[in-house]
């Protein structure tokens, strides 16, 4: 756990971006998330950790209502984004997801060109008034995705032809192209090799300057490396939530301690 000290800790307090209160999630009869309260800050990387099946991914998908696509899934409680309930009837999930972007476990570029992959979001949301503006957005997003230098000469090549790590950075670039305020990442490095993982982690740290990033990860080292805040989930409960350094060095709950020392999980 030496590398933990390497991460510069953000000590100054920030705005609260997402505020979840008493969130319950049911899959049919299964109670998947129980009574979760969590506050996610702006310009911070928040990590969700916990053993498999603990509900961390489920909870993440609640934050931009991706669970709407699953018929049997039901969400109760309040999740506020900038003080507005995202499960309000008047909220269009489409608009919500433009604000709360998402990057998935497996890189999932569309079977289109690299350019079209990134331009897809801006196009559907009407962010560019003309071709040159769109070009600008694409370039800016690819730069933010730290992949511009690798693909700038072959923007017309299919996105599916890139390597795994490049695909994932392309997906991140695609996500930031819609100018989201929050970026959700569901185990973004689990399908990548160590070098690609390092590149993506570096990228996440850079993204922190503009977005609130929430990352679900299996790897405690990764959580320690990239996040400022960590939430530990276990069997659908939020066991502990706090500064990453504190969670890893001085956990309050015995279950957290068991997990980070490798006794459960």
């Amino acid at each position: 756990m030496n590398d933990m000290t390497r991460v510069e800790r953000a000590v100054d307090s920030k705005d609260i971006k997402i505020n979840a209160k008493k969130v319950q999630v049911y899959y049919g009869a299964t109670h998947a998330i129980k009574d979760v309260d969590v506050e996610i800050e702006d310009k911070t990387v928040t990590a969700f950790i916990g053993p498999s099946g603990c509900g961390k991914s489920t909870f993440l998908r609640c934050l931009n209502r991706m669970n709407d696509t699953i018929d049997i899934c039901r969400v109760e409680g309040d999740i506020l984004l900038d003080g507005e309930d995202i499960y309000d009837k008047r909220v269009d999930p489409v608009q919500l997801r433009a604000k709360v972007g998402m990057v998935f476990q497996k890189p999932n570029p569309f079977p289109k060109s690299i350019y079209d992959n990134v331009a897809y979001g801006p196009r559907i949301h009407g962010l560019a008034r003309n071709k040159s503006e769109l070009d600008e957005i694409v370039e800016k997003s690819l730069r933010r995705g730290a992949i511009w230098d690798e693909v700038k000469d072959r923007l017309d090549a299919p996105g599916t032809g890139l390597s795994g790590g490049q695909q994932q950075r392309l997906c991140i670039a695609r996500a930031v192209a819609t100018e989201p305020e929050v970026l959700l990442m569901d185990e973004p490095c689990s399908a990548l090799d160590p070098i690609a993982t390092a590149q993506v982690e570096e990228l996440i740290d850079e993204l922190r300057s503009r977005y609130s990033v929430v990352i679900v990860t299996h790897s405690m080292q990764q959580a320690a490396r990239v996040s400022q805040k960590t939430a530990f989930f276990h069997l659908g409960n939020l066991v502990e939530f706090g500064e990453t350094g504190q969670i890893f060095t001085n956990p309050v709950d015995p279950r957290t301690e068991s997990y980070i020392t490798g006794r459960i999980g």
Partner: protein
Amino acid sequence: MPILWLILIVSAVAAVGYVLGRARALQSAGGDSRNLHSLPSFYGANVTLKILVPAFGLLIAWLLVQPFFVNSQVSGMIPESAIKEGSSRSLVMAEVRRTAFGLDNAVAQGNLTESAASDAQVDVIDVTQRLKDAGQVVTSEITQPVLRAAQSYRAMSATGYAIMSVAVLAVAVIGAVIGWLQTNAEYRARNVVEQGVRVLLLAAASIAILTTVGIVLSLVFNTWEFFKLYPASDFFFGMTWAPSFSGRGGSSELGILPLLWGTLYISIVALLVAVPIGLFAAIYLSEYASPRLRSVAKPLLEVLAGIPTIVYGLFALLTVGPLLLDIFGDSGLGWMKAGTAVMTAGLVMGIMLIPFVSSLSDDIINAVPQAMRDGSYGLGATQSETIRQVVLPAALPGIVGAILLAASRAIGETMIVVLGAGAAARLSLNPFEAMTTVTAKIVSQLTGDADFASPEALVAFALGMTLFILTLGLNVFALYIVRKYREQYE
């Protein structure tokens, strides 16, 4: 039916062989089946297989070869002078065979005695009259050479079948003896029987190849005959389809182009109906519909696929045709002259193809990984944007394959066009005019009175050949696309 008796006798020999083989095996093991290499039943089965396979193999081979042999022998007996002007040896042989069958039936009915039927000196006119009395179809007056040939045809066939019966029984008995002699405790009956069954299974699987070979041979052979009588270039590039009904006159114009155009036009109309409806139905069912709606609507749509095409044909002729005539006919817009038209057949064929397109597209849309959709939703795309810009482009090759398969169905469809499209072959752009197709003409040329040796009948095989190659090409191409598409997401 002597062949039936032969089959029954061989089967009985096989059954006895089973019992004997089993008993001999047990006996050789001193009555204790544990001393045997295989289970006792395998020894019985060994003997049975050795009886049935060669005996029935010989029977089938003999039945296939004998008519050939007799035909060529008898054909050689007909003198050149007996073949009339404009006729051919094969036509006379057909006459001979008809007469021979007629004699058989007349004898069976008692109108003719066996001795009279085989007497070479018998009066031709009398025999002809007796055959007519017996209700046998005799196309023209039987001539002396024809009757002679028919009589020797009968005689040779009868001798042939007698030899065949003896040979088959002999083979069965030899098989039984060999199987029986082989049987002892050390004999590896199970391995032998299993190897034999394996060969039988392989033979069953090979029937698919035989069928294809049969189709190709019957098409190629008859098409070749046709091109000997009618120039191939006129067939492929002729703009008129006007077969003469008189028989074998040289006045027929048999150009395939008007038929191909009708086939294509009707198929296009059908696809214009089926593809949008089927595709949108598949999209709705796989992306939007609640499980309840899906569980009701999907099987209901598939009912359309289970309805025989004759029902659609009648629907076109008696319901859709008159309905369209009311709207577009003289009482309405005045574009349509009769109920049978390209539009009628195309529309009904389109209805038939809806479930075909929708269930194929449904499979293909479902094969697009969910991750692709998630990626799009995660960016804030609506469902329709996701479908139109991500799912459909990803599924496009598969959907193209499905449409090609539907097109091949439309091209090969027969009953709807026979009843709904009309009979006139014409090259026209008006969809409310009657046109005809390749399939419809195959039916009309082969069910009419034309002689099988005339170009008017043989043209059907050339049409069939064209149809076969066309649909085969479409299918192979479509299946290739669909397979490539599936591999991409596996």
